[in-house]
């Protein structure tokens, strides 16, 4: 609960109208984001422990003490339900990815074999959802609760600009159906990379391409122009 509080508090602070509406100064906004980020990481440790507990994969007793929440404090705190009492669980067993929306995720890019646990937070089943993961090679064997799962790989587009976007080894996105996810449950998929040297990026061609269409971009809109740090002439209120 202390781990969750590290997120609950900054989220509460972020109910302030400036945080909600984006009318805070930049450095305040950055600080809001930093505190929430620290809170998210703290919460992920709690989720990792809970997943280990749910899946019965709690770490062996020799798990390093730093990964183990101090049982003493845990058992004493009256806030913890009984079945959590007195067992050891690891809070570093699972990793989480915050940059899936820009196709960056170390575990799926760098590992050759991994388990992806999909948690459905809704209290009802979700059907027809898909898992999309950034990967560095396109061919994977995916096994789910009901056997093998078919996958599709799509090459990632080349970045249009040379602005540092994603820092990742991903060349493709791997897509597979998550099937029916019951409410409030974890569904596991085991992924194993298949090294197939015949498969090269060129194999994944678009079925239609009209890349010649010259995009008419008025010069003033070109990003080059905006590279110069433009410091607007504005009446700064006295300090």
């Amino acid at each position: 609960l202390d781990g969750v509080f590290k997120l609950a508090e900054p989220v509460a602070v972020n109910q302030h109208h400036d945080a909600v509406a984006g009318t805070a100064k930049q450095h305040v906004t950055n600080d809001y984001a930093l505190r929430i980020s620290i809170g998210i990481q703290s919460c992920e440790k709690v989720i990792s422990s809970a997943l280990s507990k749910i899946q019965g994969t709690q770490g062996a007793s020799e798990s390093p003490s730093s990964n183990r929440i101090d049982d003493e404090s845990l058992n004493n705190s009256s806030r913890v339900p009984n079945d959590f009492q007195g067992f050891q669980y690891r809070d570093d067993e699972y990793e989480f990815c915050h940059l899936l929306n820009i196709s960056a995720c170390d575990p799926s890019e760098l590992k050759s074999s991994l388990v992806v646990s999909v948690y459905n937070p809704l209290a009802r089943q979700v059907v027809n959802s898909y898992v999309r993961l950034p990967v560095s090679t396109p061919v994977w064997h995916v096994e789910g609760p009901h056997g093998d799962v078919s996958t599709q790989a799509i090459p990632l587009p080349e970045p249009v600009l040379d602005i540092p976007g994603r820092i990742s080894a991903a060349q493709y996105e791997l897509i597979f159906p998550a099937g029916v996810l019951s409410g409030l449950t974890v569904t596991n998929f085991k992924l194993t990379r298949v090294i197939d040297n015949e498969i090269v990026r060129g194999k994944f061609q678009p079925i239609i391409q009209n890349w010649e269409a010259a995009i008419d971009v008025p010069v003033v809109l070109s990003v080059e122009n905006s590279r110069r740090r433009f410091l607007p002439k504005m009446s700064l209120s006295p300090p």
Partner: protein
Amino acid sequence: NEDFSIENSVGLTCEFDGTTGLIQKIRRGNSEIQLSQNFYYYHGMKGNNSDFDSRASGAYIFRPNGTSPIPIAQKVKYEVYKGEHVTEVRQVFSEWVSQVIRLYDKADAVEFEWLVGPIPVGDHIGKEVVTRYSTDLSTNGTFYTDSNGREMLRRKRNKRPTWNYKVYEPVAGNYYPVNSRMIITEEEKQNKKRKTLILLNDRAQGGTSINDGELEVMIHRRLLFDDAFGVGEALNEEAYGTGLVTRGKHWIVFAGDTTGVPASIHRPLAQEIFMDRILAFRDSTPADEIYLSGA
């Protein structure tokens, strides 16, 4: 340059203009709707903040200079990838605006994932980027926006339900909060059937329907002057020395000829967007077979 279409296994089809690369129609079973989508930007009002009616567009204020936004591109570079689970149309509008339109195999909604920024300000003008979904629905100035995902509020262009509204800002005065969804539907016909278009977003945004049959949502802003409401700096967020790049998604649901606005379609989808699945990753161990069953 031929027109092309993408479809999935539950009867949802999107048609594209081969020359421009832009979407032009959505068909669901036997029902269809003309739908075009493009990105535009308003010039932010520079103002001088000396007196009330010359406010600058800034963190507190949305005040475009002019009522017609400028289209970013009339045609796009595009390529289409088709596969077993998803078909996607990738579009490049300009160096700083691109989008992927996705149709998953069993999906009810068309996914628009946009990537906008850094907004160029080499011309010393702040810009407010919007996306517009334009249809042939006769909506008579009416549209619906949600209030924190709970109820849908009916909006009427240039009107207010409780007072005689005088139009000072023809665009900004018609912008409303869109926390999770926005809906347009055609006026009821004799057979009570009507077409409805639903837009779901992945974060709270501002939206309006300036023209009949249209949904407009603001997705990014970069302004250069403080609007004198107290924050004391322009809304000009930067990263790596250039403007912020934003990425997000909209989902468009075309509810064919139905009676009333089908909450049964947008409510579950809005919940799944808001309470998205959480992915956790761990090393695979020999014991995995045991845990492959759900828990």
